[in-house]
């Protein structure tokens, strides 16, 4: 890997092209790969979700497009969304309206920088690792508020405000819940966190943290039972009620991309990342991640939606104290064990 890169740079240097050109090319290639991965993975997840929900609800789900169990349904839907008319509501703030899905998607995309798919399969092992994800995911909220406000629709403003309140409240228990892991490892770096789990996955010593993280993560992703920002029976669809076609597709893409990120981080922090016998590391990582995604889907199709005040109570009065308790106990144990 290293050698190929060096040869790649050397080839350009020999031609007298400045060093920045191969680097830019490399960046573009990596970014394209990530986008490609996101698109394929999201399409698969959407199809999967439809199949899972269908089987939970004693139906079949998509069965036609593409032949085998409608595997191409998401592709067909994606194409349909892309060729739809681009509608911007008359009273909307056009610039902000157009910018909002881009910001949401950019935040979702940026989070992939730190996901360790395998020992060498990481875009950049940042020093600040997990913290990077936490900070970049707060950008999503800005995008959602922009979308809600610029649509010039009361339902979308309500949805955006709910979403912001929810994301801000649940970020706190989310961060505190993973502190236990970080304290144990003594590093924020994703690679180091995974390597520290060679012998035992953190889900065992940090089970409480894992549960709190999963709950808060569901809320971060705006999924049932925490899909209050989108609650279709109350707010019709929340912040993206005015979006259609391509722009809607981007929101949708970002939503599922976020879901993957959240699950991937859970895998890294609690489920031992790429560790596992026999199969190649990247496969192990994907299996664990998709398992968590499956759990999230399972919950979605089984539970009812919380009310907005219950959601806040759960976040501040239950999850946060529990997370702090978990952190305190972890610290105590670490000190006692030396």
């Amino acid at each position, binding site marked *: 890997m290293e050698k190929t890169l060096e040869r790649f740079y050397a080839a350009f240097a020999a031609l007298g092209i400045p*060093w*920045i050109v191969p*680097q830019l090319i490399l960046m573009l290639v990596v970014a394209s790969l990530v986008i490609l991965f996101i698109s394929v993975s999201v399409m698969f997840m959407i199809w999967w979700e439809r199949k899972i929900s269908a089987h939970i609800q004693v139906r079949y789900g998509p069965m036609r497009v593409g032949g085998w169990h409608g595997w191409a349904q998401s592709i067909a839907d994606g194409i349909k969304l892309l060729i739809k008319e681009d509608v911007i509501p008359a009273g909307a*703030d056009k610039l*902000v309206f157009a*910018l909002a899905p881009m910001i949401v998607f950019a935040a979702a995309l940026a989070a992939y920088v730190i996901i360790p798919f395998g020992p060498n399969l990481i875009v950049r092992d*940042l*020093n*600040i690792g997990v*913290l*990077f994800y*936490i*900070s*970049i*995911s*707060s*950008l999503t*909220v*800005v995008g959602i*508020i*922009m979308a809600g*406000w610029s649509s010039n629709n009361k339902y979308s*403003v309500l949805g*955006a*405000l709910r979403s*912001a*309140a929810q994301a*801000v409240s649940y*970020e706190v228990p989310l961060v505190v819940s993973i502190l236990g892991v970080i304290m144990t490892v*003594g*590093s*924020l770096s994703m690679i180091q966190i995974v390597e520290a789990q060679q012998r035992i996955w953190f889900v065992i010593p940090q089970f409480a943290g894992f549960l709190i993280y999963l709950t808060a993560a569901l809320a971060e992703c705006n999924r049932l039972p925490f899909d209050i920002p989108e609650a279709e029976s109350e707010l019709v669809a929340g912040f993206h009620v005015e979006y259609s076609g391509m722009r809607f597709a981007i929101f949708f893409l970002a939503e599922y991309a976020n879901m993957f990120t959240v699950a991937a981080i859970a895998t890294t922090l609690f489920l031992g990342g790429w560790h596992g016998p026999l199969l190649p590391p990247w496969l192990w990582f994907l299996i664990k991640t998709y398992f968590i995604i499956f759990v999230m889907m399972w919950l979605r199709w089984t539970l009812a939606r919380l009310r907005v005040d219950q959601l806040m109570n759960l976040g501040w009065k239950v999850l946060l104290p529990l997370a702090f308790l978990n952190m305190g106990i972890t610290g105590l144990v670490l000190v006692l064990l030396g």
Partner: protein
Amino acid sequence: MTVIQVVFFLVAAFTTGAALLVVLAKNIVHCAIALVFTFFGVAALYVLLDAEFLAAVQVLLYVGGITILLLFAIMLTSRISARGVKIMNEQVGVSAVVVFAIFALMAIASLKGLAVVGSPPPASYATASLGRLLLTTYVLPFEAVSILLLAAMVGAIILARREREKD
């Protein structure tokens, strides 16, 4: 010009442009959104300075917290967001003088290479060493600031509660 310099100028231009938009935009929501970009640009500058932790905290607190609160406040008072905001008022002259004075001070300071902060920065900004410093060498100021923030928070809650009781 090195790559870093190119990137620096791009980021600086972006940040300054966004900052100008904050004060010049007619619509207050646009101002707030521009503020998000300004903070983000500043975070990028931190990254260029190898202060990754600071950058992450900048985004987390300023983008994810403070501007969201700002936007919240703006949206809950719908009458502001609907109408345009006058950018200039009679204090233009005074503020211009003050702003120029501050700018001159900072420009001179940075041109002369004066270290504004007393000691030279530590070699590594790695998060671990930063944390260690905060809890050893700088523990007193750190705790003092924490208590200050706590007091401010308690005060804010009490003020908000009292107003509600009046209703």
